[in-house]
């Protein structure tokens, strides 16, 4: 490969930021001045190039977070160091909404205007910010769901050179940026309150939330932490996989796929190098359950990953977390360090397990939650999903057999190992086993993450969240997220199990239960959902790239003055997106919309 770079040089600060993630510069810019005219690097075979390509996103992220944007000089420096063609690096940088390739002020506020936030003041908040006019040191942008719907409205703040932060429960009348551009940090809390059920005796997966100090390994150990790993090592890897099989644990990330099938396939693979990925991208609008686990029980995520890695024979795991979760990121990083220092994580641990974890931050792309897009993102490519087959268990991260599981899925493994798979399977129904987290938001009195046993009904969950506020009647529920579907109150009796949902023609998705009352402007909600998919499609395949635009346009017509044929057009587009798109985003992009139209929610 013969690469050519422009002359642009990084500033000292940019150089330092890059160095902090990829190590000292290897390309000596003093002895061989690399200029546009003379620079020709010949990389020895693709391998040496591929070796460091995976550092591209971390390097971009480092510059973004230290400097506030990625200049041409910084981009070229990264490209030279990692031997990445500049056009490709540009393609990667411009894929992510949290990376700016244009000069940016040091503080950028991403204000959520998604389904829940827009109903509790986000629009008012944005009008206020708009009225501020241009402010010198800050800028604000609208953002898709930030995973804080239980504490809406919310905003995520990027600060150059400082920790980023999240503002929640913002009072829309007191703007988070003053007219002089200063950030009113006091507006909105930052630390999450524990889940509403915290401390209740029946909890399994949430039992440490709010009761065990998430910053302290000692506290975790005192609460029985790392006993599951000990037991796993006693049993041996094959027995762990067998317990997971006996548990019939199904994926909590949305597709409800049996975990053991993936584990067994990778455990039995002839390929010695394997990977485990914990999918913590959690960007499905309305979903925030994994955040609660990661913020308030981070060690269990780390322990569960270690057990899983041990069981499938992976020595390395990646934890891919969405960029907009700074608190969870800090707590997980600290947990990883503490576990390493205590000999519970790393090349050789005191249990004899060899497994380490690399935490990677997403940079604002819902599609990177799709498993193969996530792998491409880690590899330093654009977050475009891959065509399947081959499946990740055969050819996943870096082309190696890979198990990828959701945070909640993995956290269940602790109890499966500790109490046995059949014990776990005795909870819930035969096809939907164990405890399950649901994310309650919208028109309920106590929004939050709730744990129930599979089998609880939709009505039970709404009840758990305190029912609807005074004077509000339930009009509809968005079940499963923006990729899920609307259902009417006549389904309140439906048990929330995979099989019951599937029989009713709906999906539990990522566990979203969003309640809407009689005052809801469904036209506005649907327009937002359509816009979301259009913004978040990777744009790779035609049915989804253009189909999401055409759906949005048809919906705009329907809202203004419905023409005969527009409804049918949406059905036709949906059919093509479901049939011909590459990935689940295209397959599900019009489902919620169609369900709402069919249920007459727009009338």
């Amino acid at each position, binding site marked *: *490969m*013969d*690469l*050519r770079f*422009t002359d642009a040089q990084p500033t000292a600060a940019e150089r330092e930021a890059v160095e902090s993630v990829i190590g000292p510069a290897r390309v000596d810019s003093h002895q061989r001045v690399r200029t546009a005219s003379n620079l020709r690097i010949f990389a020895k075979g693709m391998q040496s190039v591929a070796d460091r390509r995976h550092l591209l996103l971390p390097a971009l992220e480092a510059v973004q977070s230290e400097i506030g944007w990625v200049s*041409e000089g910084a*981009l070229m420096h990264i490209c030279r160091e990692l031997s990445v*063609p*500049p*056009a*490709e690096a*540009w*393609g990667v940088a*411009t*894929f*992510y*909404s949290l990376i*700016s390739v*244009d000069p940016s002020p040091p503080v950028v506020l991403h204000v959520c205007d998604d389904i829940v936030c827009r109903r509790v003041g986000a629009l008012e908040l944005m009008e206020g910010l708009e009225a501020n006019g241009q402010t010198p040191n800050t800028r604000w*942008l*609208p*953002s*898709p769901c930030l995973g804080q719907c239980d504490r809406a409205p919310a905003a995520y703040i990027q600060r150059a050179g400082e920790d980023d932060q999240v503002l929640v429960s913002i009072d829309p009348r007191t703007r988070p940026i003053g007219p002089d551009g200063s950030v009113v940090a006091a507006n909105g809390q930052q630390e999450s309150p524990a889940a509403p059920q915290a401390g209740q005796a029946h909890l399994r997966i949430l039992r440490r939330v709010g009761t065990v100090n998430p910053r302290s390994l000692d506290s975790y150990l005192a609460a029985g932490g790392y006993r599951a790993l000990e037991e796993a090592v006693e049993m041996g890897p094959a027995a762990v996989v067998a317990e997971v099989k006996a548990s019939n644990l199904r994926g909590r990330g949305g597709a409800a796929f049996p975990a053991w099938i993936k584990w067994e396939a990778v455990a039995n693979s002839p390929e010695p190098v394997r990977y485990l990925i914990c999918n913590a991208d959690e960007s499905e609008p309305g979903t925030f359950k994994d955040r609660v686990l990661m913020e308030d029980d981070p060690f269990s995520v780390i322990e569960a990953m270690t057990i899983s890695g041990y069981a499938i024979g992976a020595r390395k795991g990646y934890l891919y977390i969405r960029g907009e979760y700074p608190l969870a990121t800090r707590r997980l990083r600290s947990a990883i360090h503490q576990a390493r220092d205590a000999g519970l994580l790393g090349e050789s641990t005191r249990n004899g397990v060899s497994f380490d974890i690399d935490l990677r931050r997403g940079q604002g*792309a819902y599609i990177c939650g799709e498993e193969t897009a996530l792998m491409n993102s880690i590899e330093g490519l*654009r977050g475009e999903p891959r*065509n399947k*087959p081959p499946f990740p268990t055969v050819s996943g991260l870096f082309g190696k057999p890979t198990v990828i599981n959701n945070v909640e899925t993995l956290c269940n493994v602790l109890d499966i190992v500790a109490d046995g798979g059949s014990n776990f399977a005795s909870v819930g129904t035969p096809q939907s086993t164990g405890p399950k987290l649901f994310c309650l938001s919208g028109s309920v009195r106590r929004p939050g993450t709730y744990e129930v046993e599979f089998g609880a009904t939709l009505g039970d969950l709404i009840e758990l969240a305190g029912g609807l506020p005074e004077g509000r009647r339930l009009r509809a529920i968005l079940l499963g997220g923006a990729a899920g579907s609307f259902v009417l109150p006549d389904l309140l009796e439906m048990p929330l199990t995979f099989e019951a949902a599937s029989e009713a023609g709906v999906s539990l998705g990522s566990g979203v239960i969003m309640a809407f009352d009689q005052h809801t402007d469904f036209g506005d909600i649907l327009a937002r959902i359509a*816009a979301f998919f*259009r*913004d978040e*499609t*990777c*744009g*790779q*395949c*035609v*049915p989804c*790239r*253009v*189909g*999401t*635009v*055409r759906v*949005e*346009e048809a*919906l*705009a*017509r329907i809202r*203004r003055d419905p023409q005969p044929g527009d409804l049918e*057009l949406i059905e*036709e*587009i949906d*059919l*093509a997106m*479901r*049939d*011909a*798109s*590459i990935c689940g985003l295209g*397959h599900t992009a019009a489902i919620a919309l169609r369900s709402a139209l069919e249920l007459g929610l727009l009338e």
Partner: protein
Amino acid sequence: MTQPETTETANTVSLTIDGSPVEVRPDATLLEACRQMGTEVPTLCYLETLTPVNVCRICVVEVERNRTLVPACSRIAEEGMVVKTDSERVRHSRKMILEFLGSSVDLSAAEDEVGEWMEQYQADPARYGPQSEPTAAGERGRRHPGHHGEVNGRTAEGVHQPTKVDNTLYVRDYSRCILCYKCVEACGIDAQGTYAIAVAGRGFDARISTEMDLPLGDGACVFCGNCIGVCPTGALMFRSEWELRRAELWDPDAQSVTRTVCSYCGVGCNLELHTQDNRIVKVTSPQDHDVTSGHLCIKGRFGYDYVQNLGDVDRSSIDEVLAAARRPAPE
């Protein structure tokens, strides 16, 4: 190295396509299987000489027991597969894909088959409404992923924009780009190894771009023109062709193609010289040629002026227009 013959591994895979049995070599794609039996499957992003990216989805077929349709160009044939290439579902998806492209991209210079498929699948791109206004030069190239502007549904949003004319050899008219990734692959991993262009941005704003959207000559491009050679829509075009089209003098019927061997070096690349009124108006190389697979270098592709530098002796009606192609910026 020769592989020992093994009798255990099957030498063929049997499947059924549209009710007829067919045997193909292991690892053959469904597209190869279809072609082997003479069944036509439309393709846009697929080319024999490039790695399949399976993004256009026009080649989808129905395979029994698969929830969704599958791309024939990249799905490997499996023993016992039952494939339908012309079912209602297949026809519907192909029709919609053609409509999506036709309503967002200028297909007027695309390969002839595209028009034929439009008729065959009764695609009606016009039903999405009139085309949105073209965007200003450079605007799409700087779009940030995330929230987009107001949508009213009165027009069908497209990718129309001014043509990028930043050099004397070829132009990039991304109003015609269907984002098939062929040029990216030809420039990068599959042929040229230059990596001058890549896909940038996200979603409907995804586009082919150089780094920082630089003019071609300021980036890594070596002007081999291999991207032009693979572009199915005329988005990438010889400057000479573009100028002639602008002057309404481009006339394929009046053109002839002469096959010859490039005289610059000893590799022996075959050239196809397309001439109109005794002037070379573009150069291609046969895709099935062993040496080139359709790819050339800057000399073979663009270094033909010496052939027709005849001064005043021989004048051609298109000389004036071709002279315009030598000016850096368009008039």
